[in-house]
């Protein structure tokens, strides 16, 4: 096995008539934090379940850590960690009992297990809560417990399915710090999310929509490769201006952000600033701004968080 941890070709999953994941080609290098970005129902969870061997693909080839899936799923299990979208540890066991249970399930016993549990509880600040029932923990504590459980056996590859959906921003930032630690230590991480700021933290990204991959690459690459200019306009009557702008065929998208109107202008227009000031007149300030991942998302998916052509 070289430096590629996950490789899929034409990975497809259908449920009856509907296609959940369609012809997905993925290449995830070792040690990278790889993000699946997409709206709910875009096939993120289904893809992760196929990559962990929980679902059998309808067609396509999957190779994870050198194992062919789904045939060699059982060998793979000792080497991967999986943090499910829903909290999947036991509510009526204490934090410590949950970790002890997981350690035994992975065949870790005795001193090694208790050392490792102690280390994890320290790392994820769970020490004071160790005799508390898992069901009574806060969202952030549950999430850290789940991460501790998923990494207890020191897996080479970690799958996180929307890990921060029930967590406040402060805890989310802390959580990502831990993920970077793991990544630094050589763990490859595949994380699904529908948060832009979270996606921006990934080394590489795949943008999924309706089960298909719309784009992939590093966040910087994705931004650079966008066939649009990003500009912001400020001035009076932005609601009306927005409708007017959307009638222009060269404007891909217009979205209001407070007192500014963010416009994505096709790169067929070489000088967007001049062109826009011609259209709008002198009452408006126009400036070209740094593109964000949301712009990437909007231009590559066709449905987005803003209106578009």
């Amino acid at each position, binding site marked *: 096995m070289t430096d590629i941890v996950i490789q899929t070709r034409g990975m497809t999953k259908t449920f009856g008539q509907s296609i959940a994941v369609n012809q997905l080609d993925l290449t995830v290098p070792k040690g990278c934090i790889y993000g699946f970005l997409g709206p709910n129902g875009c096939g993120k969870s289904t893809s992760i*379940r196929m990559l*962990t*061997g*929980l*679902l*059998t693909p309808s067609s396509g080839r999957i190779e994870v850590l050198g194992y062919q899936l*789904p045939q060699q*799923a*059982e060998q793979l*299990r*000792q080497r*991967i960690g*999986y943090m*499910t979208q*829903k*909290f*999947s*540890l*036991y*509510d*009526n*066991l204490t934090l410590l*009992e949950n970790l*002890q*249970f*997981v350690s*035994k*399930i*992975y*065949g870790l*016993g005795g001193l090694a297990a208790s050392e490792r549990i102690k280390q994890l509880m320290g790392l994820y600040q769970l020490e004071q809560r160790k005799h508390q029932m898992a069901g009574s923990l806060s969202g952030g504590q549950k999430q850290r417990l789940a991460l501790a*459980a998923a990494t207890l056996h020191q897996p080479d590859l970690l799958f996180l399915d929307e890990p921060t959906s029930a967590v406040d921003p402060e805890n989310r930032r802390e959580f990502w710090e831990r993920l970077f630690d793991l990544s630094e230590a050589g763990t490859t991480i595949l994380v699904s999310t529908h948060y832009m700021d979270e996606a921006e933290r990934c080394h590489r990204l795949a943008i999924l929509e309706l089960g298909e991959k719309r784009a992939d690459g590093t966040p910087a690459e994705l931004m650079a490769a966008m066939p649009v200019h990003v500009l912001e306009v400020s001035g009076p009557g932005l609601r009306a201006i927005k409708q007017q702008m959307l009638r222009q065929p060269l404007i891909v998208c217009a979205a209001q952000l407070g007192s500014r109107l963010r416009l994505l202008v096709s790169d067929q227009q070489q000088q967007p600033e001049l062109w826009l000031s011609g259209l709008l007149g002198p009452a408006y300030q126009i400036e070209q701004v740094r593109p964000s991942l949301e712009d990437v998302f909007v231009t590559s998916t066709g449905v987005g968080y803003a209106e578009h052509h």
Partner: protein
Amino acid sequence: MQSIIRISAIIFKELKQLSRDRITFAMVVMIPLVQLLLFGYAINTDVRYLPAAYVDLSQTASSRLLLDRIRATQVVNFVTHYDSMVAAEQAITEGKVSAVLYLPADLELRLLQLHQAAAKTLARPAGHWVVDGSDPMISSAVRGLRLMPLQEDSKTITKTAVSFEVVSYFNPEQRTAVNIVPGLIAVILTMTMILFTSAAIVREREQGNMEFLITTPIKPLELMLGKIVPYILVGFIQMLIILALGHLLFDVPFAADLLSLFIITFLFICASLALGLLISTKAQTQLQAMQMTVFVLLPSILLSGFMFPFAAMPEPAQWLAELLPATHYVRMIRAVVLREAHWFDLGFDSLCLLLFSLIALSIATARFKKRLD
């Protein structure tokens, strides 16, 4: 070695969760306790004090004497009387009484004829019983009054010769509880064992624990065994509660041969637990698991010989009943508790339970996929 660590992890987890689930924990004890009290006292095949009425057209001292003597049998309890059979039949239809005794106007004459004729001629009966025959047990109880002697005077009682003498072994007083209590273990274990195991696995699926568990290296058989073992203990506790209370309250003999008792009960618990696991591979929700448990439970009560004699059922029903673990266990536990049989006297039933357990466990393990599709 890793297998044993993993199985013990599941066992410990299961026991801890069970001890924290107060309602379930209470049910482990309360189900056998309450059901035993309820059934032990309530189920009785000796029919007594049937509500009855009489229509006495003779209105004589003899008729009143006769009514008193019938009352003294305790089979019926005359709650009322009517002036005509029309009114009496209406009372049966309405369910006010189960039987009506009709004494004709010429009762004295009939009694006299009966007395003189003895067995020589076909004398007319002294009166009629009209019975609500929809329940055969009730009508046969009243039917038992047909041959009751009419006179106290011992000289005049016609002694009919007995064709056979009956000697009743094991339950000479013919108390129903003696037969019911051991059978009750079968019914209660069927219910709790199947339900607990099936629910224990389905709950993990419902609450999302299973998705995590099946991405770990645990093997299906390890999971199944880990889930079964704690409930074997629960089953033994329930058996002991029923037998001990049955002994204290209803004088049911406590099994003389404890080893046999434990061996046959172990076999039955294993069969029920394996069936529970099998259900859990099919049921998606705890409600479905419950429904499937009831599907097995009802025939286990009605066909196993617990309520009605096995031999009385038509042959196809007997074959069907042989498929139920409860049938074999009812037979064995009665043999061991009441007739002091040894487990090796009961080879066929033991073998059936063993086979049932192995087959059900294999199918459950094969059907349990570490997959979501």
